[in-house]
């Protein structure tokens, strides 16, 4: 029997029942998507790294494993998971919430790092989706459906994620310049942040390249980015970020090229124009007919 098999079975059994149930991770993003029904019984996903072969660049672990633990073991082999989460966040929580870290500009969305998952469904039965290899198109891609679903369709029990090499050199630069112009001058920077005035850019790669790109920016080196405002979050098409200075007077920090805006005020996207709601509702009804999984969380 594979490592982790018993743990995921026990987890699924803990989900089974007819009562309301919620899965608790590191509670680092607990406020996302609305308040959990206080009557929901809490369960926790398994913890532990079951399988890690550095040359495969994949890692299989319980969904309750913290990012800190995962980054530590990957780090021993100069690898990483390109998320910027608190060490206490669980990998299951990060995937269920689906928010990518600030290096998305270079490394892509967090959904692309989940290769295979086991989740407990509304009856407490285990469902496997995806596959353990880096490339796979066998069957419907339920992994991507689960990422960002806030645990409303099933609770992640175990995941296989893809890792990446840690870049040999990493440098933050800051100063005043046009961030859009800067983006067009650089080849795949890891992050460009802008507050309407000041710019912070993260360059990663071979030291020679980082040095050369740093000189292109004309900015000065700094220790890191400022703290991201966390009261509000806007998802915009990247070019709309140009208009931010005219739109908001409060503090904000925008991820250039990505389209995310972190605000100090509670401003969020207007959802009125959401498409395909019927299908989304239908999926929720089919996968959780009694609405017992994470009641109170709203994805759409």
């Amino acid at each position, binding site marked *: 029997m594979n490592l982790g098999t018993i743990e995921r079975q026990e987890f699924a059994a803990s989900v089974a029942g007819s009562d309301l149930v919620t899965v608790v991770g590191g509670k680092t993003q607990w406020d996302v998507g609305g308040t959990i029904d206080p009557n929901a019984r809490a369960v926790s996903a398994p913890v532990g790294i079951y399988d890690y072969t550095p040359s495969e660049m994949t890692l299989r672990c319980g969904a309750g494993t913290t990012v800190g633990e995962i980054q530590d073991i990957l780090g021993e082999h100069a690898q990483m998971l390109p998320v910027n989460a608190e060490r206490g966040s669980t990998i299951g929580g990060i995937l269920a919430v689906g928010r990518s870290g600030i290096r998305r500009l270079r490394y892509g969305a967090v959904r692309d790092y989940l290769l295979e998952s086991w989740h407990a469904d509304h009856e407490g039965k285990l469902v*496997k989706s995806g596959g353990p290899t*880096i490339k*796979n198109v066998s069957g*419907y891609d339920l992994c991507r459906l689960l*990422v960002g679903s806030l645990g409303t369709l099933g609770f992640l029990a175990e995941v296989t994620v893809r890792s990446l*090499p*840690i870049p040999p050199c990493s440098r933050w630069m800051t100063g005043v310049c046009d961030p859009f112009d800067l983006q067009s001058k650089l080849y795949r920077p890891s992050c460009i942040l802008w507050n309407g005035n000041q710019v912070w850019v993260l360059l990663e790669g071979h030291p020679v390249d980082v040095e050369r790109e740093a000189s292109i920016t004309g900015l000065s080196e700094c220790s890191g980015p400022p703290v991201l405002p966390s009261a509000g979050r806007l*998802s915009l098409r990247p070019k709309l970020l140009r208009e931010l200075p005219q739109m908001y007077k409060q503090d904000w920090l925008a991820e250039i090229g990505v389209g*995310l805006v972190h605000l100090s005020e509670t401003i969020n996207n207007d959802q009125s124009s959401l498409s395909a*709601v019927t299908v989304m509702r239908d999926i929720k009804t089919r996968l959780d007919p009694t609405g017992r999984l994470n009641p109170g969380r709203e994805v759409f």
Partner: protein
Amino acid sequence: MSSKRKRTIFDELKVLLGSRTRADDMELQLYGKDSSVLSGVPSTVCFPVNVEEVQGIVSICNRFQRPFIARGSGTGLAGGAVPIGNPVIISTAKMNKVLEIDLEDRIAWVEPGVLNLDLSKALLEFGFHFAPDPSSQQVCSIGGNVANNSGGPHCLAYGVTTSHVLAAEVVLPNAEVVTLGGIDPEPKGYDLRGLFIGSEGTMGIATKVAVRLTPNPPDVRTLLLDFADVSDGALAVSAIINAGIIPAALEMMDHNAIGIVEAFVHAGYPVEAAAVLLVELDGLSGAVEAAVQTINDVAKIHNAGSVRVAKDETERALLWKGRKNAFGAVARIKPDYYLHDTVVPRSKLVEVLNQVYQIADKYELIAINVFHAGDGNLHPILAYDAREPGILERVHSAGDEIIKASMEAGGVLSGEHGIGLEKRDFMHLLFSAHDMFTQDLVREAFDPQGLANPMKVLPSGSRCSDSFKQNLPEGVWV
């Protein structure tokens, strides 16, 4: 006295599309096949030019309860576009415009019939490309790439289609038009975009696709490593990844493949070698140069005969021409071939490759291996002559064993070709009945009536009724 004849589905489609509704014998035969060995018979072939027409066709199919299949270029290798249940074929061939290139957002909106390579050519002057590059990229369509979540050699570093499609306008099986995903980074709701990509036309038809533009790398280096032993080549693959390098592409060709490719392109491939690795490194020059050095070191450790670095773009293009045309070049030794597609962990490449050779020997077939080694994505080609009596049975039996060997090594059924008809009855090797039941629940949310490309992906009996099974065409291997 004549009674008014009741209008058939063909009549209705004819009213909608005029001469772009076809049912000539030759067309029906042509559209009965894709690039797999399977075939069926469609009832009608339609060539819509816009979303309204696609919507109209789907509405008519709903009224007549007739299945429909979206079809791109028909390059699919798993029978995904093979008609079952006398369906209406909806060809996207006439929806082939690049609608908008937005350099600020780094996206392009394209119609599904745009060919993969044409898109990258259209982006060239702006310094961008569309990263997924299947070997069929000269002829395969973006809509087909979306349906199959297509890969290609350069997906090792850049990811497959799902990482490069941000949004799609889709005609759902009930004829409703929706947009899945969005140009913004966190579209609200469930990721139906991610679910739709790779669903092989069973969840609707994409009529407009927003693709991500990838900047062309400032520096590209293409290397050819040759080995006297296949095992050394396969071990070098893991060693390269272990050294912290993710090449843009890391391809392997075995002795048989090298021979036919060299005879075809004359690129100077070492025909004596047991295997070659084609390695492409791209990015900024510092990283590329360091990686070239590392690969030279790996080559020495793993007994590579030589490391040849393409000296210019012409030489690079020639080496790639060999790789990308390897399948066509098989015709030099046998008129037909069956191309497989499984993925195994990189560490199992040697083991599974050896099994592939043994299986081919057992069935007296020629196995040719040319594949995406960096991804562990095997593409064993079984070359044969269909005129030889009983040969297809041997080819299928060998194929079954290759699939099973890959599964036993901890692999998956398909890396990039999809499940279609070809592999749906192997799905149980990877998934439990409950896994497949759950997948079918999700499919049903899109298509409760089972009209969109029925009988594909999931084995019959996963959940949906077997209403189309009686129409299984002869020769369909399911």
